[in-house]
C-alpha cells in the first residue's frame, strides 16, 4: 500500500479542522456545542499525530492518537456529567450563566 499523500496537505487539514473547532468554541454559548467543538479539536490533534507518525514511519504517532482517544472518552463522560449537573442547577445550557466570579 503505497501512496504519495502530501504530508503538508494532511497537516493543513489537521490545522483547518482544529481552527474550525476553535472558532466553534469561541462563538458558541451552548455548553454541549462547546464540548462537541473540543472533540473536533482533539480529533484534529490526533490527525496531526497520525501524520507525523506516518511521515517518520514510527508507531509513536498512533500511540499518541490512542492516548488522545482514551482521554477524549474520559473527558466526554465527565464533561457530560458536568453538563447534566449544570443543567439541573441552572436550568440552562448557557455557559455565560455560570459566571459567578464576574470581575
Amino acid at each position, binding site marked *: *500500500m503505497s*501512496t*504519495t*499523500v502530501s*504530508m*503538508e*496537505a*494532511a497537516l*493543513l*487539514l489537521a*490545522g*483547518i*479542522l482544529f*481552527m*474550525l*473547532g*476553535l*472558532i*466553534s468554541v*469561541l*462563538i458558541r454559548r*451552548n455548553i*454541549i*456545542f462547546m464540548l*462537541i467543538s473540543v*472533540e*473536533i479539536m482533539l*480529533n484534529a490533534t*490526533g*490527525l496531526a499525530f*497520525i501524520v507525523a507518525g*506516518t511521515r517518520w*514511519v514510527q*508507531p509513536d*504517532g*498512533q*500511540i499518541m*492518537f*490512542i*492516548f488522545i*482517544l*482514551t*482521554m*477524549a*472518552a*474520559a*473527558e*466526554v*463522560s*465527565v464533561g*457530560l*456529567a458536568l*453538563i*447534566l*449537573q449544570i443543567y*439541573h*442547577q441552572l436550568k440552562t*445550557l*448557557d455557559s455565560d450563566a455560570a459566571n*459567578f466570579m464576574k470581575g
Partner: protein
Amino acid sequence: MELTFYIAAAVAILSTVMVITRYNMIHALLYLVVSFLAVAVVFFTLGAPFMAALEVIIYAGAIVVLIIFVIMMLNMTQEDVQREKEWLQPATWVGPAILSAVLLAELVYIVVAADTPAAGAVVAVDAKFVGLALFGPYILGVQLSGILLTAGIVGAYHLGRQKKKVIHRFLQERSAAA
C-alpha cells in the same frame, strides 16, 4: 489513493463547517459523525487502518452516541434551537473567526516555510508495531490511561448522579435571592 485523501479531506472540512454552523444539536451531531468518518478515511490513506477503525468505533460511535443520549435526557425543543440562533449573531463570531484565521495563517506559514525533506511514499505502520510499542516502551502510559478511564467512570457517576438537590456553595446566595 491521493484522490481519496483529498476527497475525504474536503468532506471532513465541509462537514465540520456544517457542525459548527448548525443551530440544531442533533443535526450538528450527525454532521460530526460524517466528519469523523471522513477523518477515518484520511487515516486510512495515511496508512493507519487500525486507527481508522478506532476512530469510527470510539469517536463516531461511542462518543457521539453518548452525547446524543445526554441531549435526549435534556429534552431539547424548538425554543432551544431558536435561542441557539439568537446566540449566533455575526457580531459574536466575526472576532473569533478572524483570530482563528490569523492563527491558521501562522500555522500554514510554519508548515510551508519549514523545508523538511520531502517524504517518500506512505508506508503503513501496521497495528502490530503499534501494539508492541504500546505494551513495550509506553506501558506506563497505558496504565495511566487505565487509571484515567477509571477516574472518568467514577467521576461521571458521581457528578451525573441525580441526588436530592444539592446546591453548590457558589450558588447558594443566588438561589436564596431567587
